[in-house]
């Protein structure tokens, strides 16, 4: 079945949930309202159908409201695979392994931050390197001239390494998915090239849709949960959100193993529907090697975001001349949206470990999940949904329904509607800057042309995509957040 036919065959489950016929091994399940669904490209359904044909896929090939065309599978997609019969595929995880979001709260209000926003953003721009090929912050001694054995520790220990070196606290770890460390990491499965690309990039933001933002709590949808997370505790509370991943280290791991899996396919007579979706059986030697290398990428990204977190704390202390405790710079949560991990779910009424692939999709665990620590056990897991630099972002919360229905997975962002090249000509840089100024958002970027690629009109309406998932009961809205300062690479 082609994309258009699949779209036409979708049956409405409710206003925000749709199911196709079986396409390959399983049907496609889409979470989106009718308006969003109409705008999804036909190729999104072709790619979801290719994924539905992969060996060992369980229940559905899932699409979320932010889905758009990706490589191999769409961005905004998830699929769970049986550990014995299933596969692992870099194309179903994404090049930027453990690309993710972190949200930090402050005890500051807009009134306190506004007069210093330029100073703060300029300071952050200096302390958090961003842009093409940016290198680790020079002021951090531990990151200068990282050796292979240093990077092995980082890749295998994750945020435990950062705690040891004084860049993180145990309290931070509680608020990071997997507590900042997946134990399946084995650095011996990572190539020399990945080490060379990664060793200078810890603590850097990168470019493209990666950003660091100062935001203000805009609207609350669930005050009780927000307050439990120490948010919305005062009017116009300021928070910090950033989006980045495993930089060149993760990209090199993905590139290395796509090549290895293409070779595996040709050696084993596997016909691929899409070369970008090359795979190996999860239990094969090749599959296990990638899983261990990819896990190093996950840990690297957690440490990358932790180093940025450290620099954010320093920048606030320098700007406001107040102590860290007084500023209240606590991690609200850190979530991944490009991973494959082993998680336990009920499949045909039996508790089963699966290898869940999430590409541009966020874990969404509900209250009581055994993976969650402290207050999160009561509230559920925070889901951070990044929007464009003009339109704002959301904090949502995971649900039991997601665990039961979508292998604990929901959307990750607003999703693009316009290509970068199209945005460069459609969005006027001068007008964009004027519009951001009018909205009182101070931006610091390496390039204005690069900035136009990220203009609000290049993205879907974040309110609509978040609302769709909320109404489907897969992740629930807690707060909307609006930007007041932004750093882009």
């Amino acid at each position, binding site marked *: 079945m082609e994309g258009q036919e699949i779209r036409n065959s979708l049956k409405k489950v409710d206003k925000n949930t749709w199911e196709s016929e079986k396409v390959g091994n399983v049907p496609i399940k889409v979470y989106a309202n009718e308006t969003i669904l109409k705008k999804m490209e036909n190729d999104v359904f072709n790619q979801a159908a290719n994924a539905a044909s992969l060996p060992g896929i369980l229940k559905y090939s899932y699409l979320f409201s932010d889905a758009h065309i990706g490589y191999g599978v769409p961005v905004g997609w998830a699929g769970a695979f049986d550990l014995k019969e299933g596969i692992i595929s870099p194309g179903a995880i994404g090049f930027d392994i453990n690309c993710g979001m972190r949200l930090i709260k402050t005890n500051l209000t807009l009134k306190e931050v506004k007069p210093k926003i330029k100073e703060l953003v300029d300071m952050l721009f200096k302390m958090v390197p961003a842009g093409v090929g940016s*290198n680790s912050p020079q002021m951090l001694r531990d990151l200068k001239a990282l050796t292979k054995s240093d990077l092995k520790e980082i890749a295998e220990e994750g945020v435990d390494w950062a705690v040891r070196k004084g860049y993180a606290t145990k309290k931070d770890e509680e608020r990071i998915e997997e507590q900042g460390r997946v134990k399946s990491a084995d650095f011996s499965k990572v190539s020399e090239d990945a080490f060379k690309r990664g060793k*200078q990039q810890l603590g850097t933001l990168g470019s493209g849709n990666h950003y660091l933002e100062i935001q203000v709590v805009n609207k609350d949808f669930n005050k009780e949960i927000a307050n439990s997370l120490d948010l919305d505790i005062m009017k116009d509370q300021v928070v910090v959100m950033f989006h980045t991943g495993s930089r060149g280290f993760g*990209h090199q791991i993905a590139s290395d193993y*796509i090549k290895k899996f293409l070779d595996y396919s040709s050696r084993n007579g596997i016909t691929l529907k*899409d070369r970008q979706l090359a795979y190996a059986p999860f239990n094969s030697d090749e599959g296990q090697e990638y899983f261990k290398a990819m896990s190093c990428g996950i840990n690297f990204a957690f440490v990358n975001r932790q180093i940025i977190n450290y620099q954010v704390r320093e920048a606030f202390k320098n700007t406001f001349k107040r102590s860290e405790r007084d500023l209240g710079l606590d991690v609200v949560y850190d979530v991944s949206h490009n991973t494959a991990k082993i998680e336990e779910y009920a499949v045909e009424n039996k508790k089963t470990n699966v290898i869940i692939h999430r590409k541009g999709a966020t874990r969404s665990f509900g209250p009581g999940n055994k993976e969650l620590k402290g207050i999160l056990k009561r509230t559920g897991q925070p889901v951070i949904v990044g929007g464009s630099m003009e339109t704002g972002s959301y904090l949502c919360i995971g649900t039991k329904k997601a665990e039961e229905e979508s292998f604990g997975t929901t959307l990750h962002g607003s999703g693009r509607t316009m*290509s970068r090249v199209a945005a460069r000509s459609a969005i006027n840089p001068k007008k964009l800057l004027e519009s951001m100024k009018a909205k009182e958002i101070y931006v610091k970027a390496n*390039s204005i042309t*690069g900035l136009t690629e990220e203009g609000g009109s290049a993205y879907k309406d974040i309110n609509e995509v978040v609302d769709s998932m909320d109404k489907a009961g897969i992740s629930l809205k807690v707060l909307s957040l609006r930007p007041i300062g932004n750093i882009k690479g």
Partner: protein
Amino acid sequence: MERYRLLKNEATADIAFIAYGKTLNELFRNIAIAVSNVMVLNVKRRGTKKISFKLNSENIDYLVIDFINKIIFYKDYKNILITDAKIKVDKNLNLKCQAVGEKLDKLKDLFLVDVKAATLHDLNVKKEKGLIRCKIVLDV
């Protein structure tokens, strides 16, 4: 003959282009120029740094991927952006590259977007009207 053309209606989240060449040598040179221009606005082709490398791949598609990934590797590892290259590709798909480039810190004010990987998505190399054309999508 244009060296390359950026594609407006493809690669929603990333960058797609078609590069052209009368020969494989010219095609690969134009791919290098396109990749550097995707990353840095109006970058000058004359660079002060020299880089040489060799590659061999089992087919032309993989050679394109390996070539672009090598450019990305030097950008991240040596902080040098390759801006132009002399290329020789033989019939066994052995590629010799003598490139020039510039240190990234000298280009800082002109950065557009970081290219992080070459993808196999819609990748194709074919002959058309006496030219070799290669369509490629870059992950940025």
